């Protein structure tokens, strides 16, 4: 197990280098001069443009820019964005908000997805099951921004249960609505995954054996059915945490959350490669760590994997 962990963590180094290089290259090759984004519609003088280019290394070829960025990274200096703000400060500012949002969404989709999925699976073909299948289908089919604006208008503007937008503090109560919207699609997937797994496992031999042994229905479902049904769900949830953090762009836009999604979007538009790369790097780290966690969870859920 120890070696396994070390190997997994060492694997992160090439993933990290490859990903940053790729992203840096992609941002670098976006069309348009980054100084045009700084100077705006009215432009600035050639002298100002030249000075800006020098200041942000925009006059250097790709490799030089990338190595200067890596060099800074080694000394924990992420550089600054075009407004002169340290990137580390920007990240420290926006990540906690998005992390809170993503975790809230994850908890929502995991708890409700699994509970609803379990009941739907146990009552296969009944009214509850069919209703949930239709509901989840609708949620998956309707674009997230439609759901977002709809819920914002209904709960924020019409019913006034909450503010339509999130303030700078991004408190727990303010984030409930955006977290619901963010987690809604994944909720539908978790529901369907759980339901299918439960239906499959409910008719498995070991469940029949357990029932035949005279175990209580509670124990049969709670331990035997659930534990095995959780394997595909855990895989999905693990990968989803990273997706939720990065995929918050639409939701954060609708609810005006000052988070990773919005910052990333602006940085891409402005061609601020160091900002994009730094944020995406953190996202990659979260993704890889979440996957590691899932793999460890597997071993706990299914002992056969432990010895493989």
């Amino acid at each position, binding site marked *: 197990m120890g070696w396994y962990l070390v190997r997994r963590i060492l694997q992160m180094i090439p993933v990290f280098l490859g990903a940053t290089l790729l992203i840096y290259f992609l941002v670098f090759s976006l069309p348009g001069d980054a100084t045009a984004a700084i100077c705006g519609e009215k432009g600035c003088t050639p002298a100002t443009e030249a000075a800006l280019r020098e200041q942000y290394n925009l006059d250097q070829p790709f490799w030089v820019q990338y190595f200067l960025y890596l060099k800074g990274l080694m000394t924990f200096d992420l550089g600054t964005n075009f407004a002169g*703000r340290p990137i580390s400060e920007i990240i420290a500012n926006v990540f906690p908000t998005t992390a809170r949002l993503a975790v809230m969404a994850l908890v929502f989709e995991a708890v409700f997805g699994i509970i609803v999925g379990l009941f739907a699976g146990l009552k296969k073909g009944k009214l509850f099951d069919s209703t949930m299948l239709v509901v989840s289908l609708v949620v998956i089919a309707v674009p997230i921004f439609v759901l977002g604006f709809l819920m914002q208008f209904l709960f924020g503007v019409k019913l006034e249960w909450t503010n339509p937008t999130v303030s700078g503090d991004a408190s727990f109560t303010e984030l409930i609505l955006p977290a619901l919207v963010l987690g809604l699609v994944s909720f539908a997937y978790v529901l369907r995954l759980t339901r299918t797994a439960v239906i499959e496992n409910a008719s498995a031999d070991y469940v029949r054996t357990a029932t035949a042994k005279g175990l209580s229905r509670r124990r049969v479902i709670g331990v035997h059915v659930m534990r095995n049904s959780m394997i595909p769900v855990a895989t999905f949830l693990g990968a989803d945490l990273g997706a939720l953090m990065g995929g918050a762009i639409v939701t954060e836009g609708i609810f005006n959350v000052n988070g990773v999604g919005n910052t990333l979007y602006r940085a891409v538009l402005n061609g601020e490669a160091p900002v994009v790369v730094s944020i995406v790097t953190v996202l990659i780290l979260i993704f890889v760590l979440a996957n590691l966690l899932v793999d460890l969870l597997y071993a706990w859920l299914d002992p056969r994997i432990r010895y493989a």
Partner: protein
Amino acid sequence: MRYSRTSKMLGVAAIAALALSACGGGDNSTESQGDTSRVIVVDGSEPQQPLIPTNTNEVGGGKVLDLVFAGLISYDAEGKSQNEMAESIETEDSQNYTIKLKEGKTFTNGDPVTASSFVDAWNYGAAAKNAQLSSYFFESIEGYDEAAAEGSKVEEMSGLKVVDDQTFTVKLRQPESDFPLRLGYSAFFPMPAEALENPEKFGENPVGNGPYKFDGEGAWQHNQEIKLVPNEDYEGPQKAQNAGVTFKMYQNDTTAYQDLISDNLDVLQTIPTSDIQNFKNDLDDRWIESPYAGNQTIAIPYYLKNWDGEAGQLRRQAISMAINRDEITKVIFNSGRTPAKEFTAPVLDGYSDNLPGSENLEFNPEKAKELWEKAEKLEPFDKSEPLTIAYNADKGDHKTWVQAVVNSIKNELGIEISGKPYATFKEVRTIATDGELTGAIRAGWQADYPSLANFLGPIYTTGAGSNDARYTNEKFDQAISDGLAAASVEEGNEAMNKAQEMLLEDLPAIPLWYQVAQGGWSNNVTNVEFGWNGVPLYYAITGK
């Protein structure tokens, strides 16, 4: 409207002001009604740079700077200038100016506002080594070339001289009668000495001399809000009528609009396109629609082969006459724009809607076809280069109206034409400044200061920074410099309009419409008025 007999002066002033603004309200009386203890929450966008007057060239930061700083002059709602820091601005030849400051004005850190506060700030803004975005605003001042040349180490412009604490002189490279008009623009604001020592740090928490000041350390929470409180020491025409202004940053207008209709936001400057149809219903009588100094055009570069020479000119006129501006502004913008009659904007002093040649901007399909055929006879249109209109798809909602313009031209002239979206603003700007456009480009201009020259000089003179069409016309250049050199603003305006007649004939860009500010406010505030530049007069807004 009440009419006070006790003070004749006040009555006359009020009537004059009413005639100008053409809308009621008692805000011209010395005391405005309303709750002055309310903090007004308004929409903003994250300033793209630290808030240094010479380095802010976009509206998000500009709105904040205009409240925190006061220049030599300021503009009232109609764009007329009024003295702020200046006691007097005098000249005899429109080239040498003597500027005297009012006594006893201070920055909010206690430093006095002196002649050096201006001279040092302007020199800082112009010097190439400081790479300030608004550097070009100082180009009329003598010595700018030396200071602003690429790689230059010169830090001072020879045209600026401090005479004493309250006086300085400005020498321009050539006579420019509208120079005093510019001095209310943010690039010309004074800065205290500490600003120039560490501009980046200063820009996070600027110290100014205007009607408002930052609400202490951390008043600017990036991408969230900027909190301003009234500057108690400020005495002037823009004295705060509320307990502060908080700029709440929005990622998009649609979100801000949701906040407005649920009273979480007090003032919204721009109604999002998607809500244009409904906002008058949603907001009852809490909305405004007023023209401001901005326009929208389509520039067609002269370096494209179909669009040069005599045939090119005929085609430009044909295109212009094939665009049904009335219908597009009505249908697409729900009357949120007004059809253009010339190249500037109707709120400006000197504007005229019937210049010779303005008939070229009227919808006239028969004449358009006629002109197009005439051009075909001179020189057949090279069909391998059909006309496109480039626009940026990332912000500003240009797609809809570009499509409408394209359809209008296609229907009337039967030629091949299409919109050409670019993913980002920077991409299309880069191509335009490099002179590598393959077709027309949507362009627009928002005034920096209320003057006709600001709409003509920077865009259409030979080699000008925003001359996307690469228009060159010696006579036009001459007319502009004559206008600038004129002894008075009136004479200057006349010359500017003479220059416009040439533009109306040549059409380096095709004017489409003038911008109209469409905004709204919440149930909690009153006394909302929009200025000449489409920005609300924040200082005058009070609670209900």
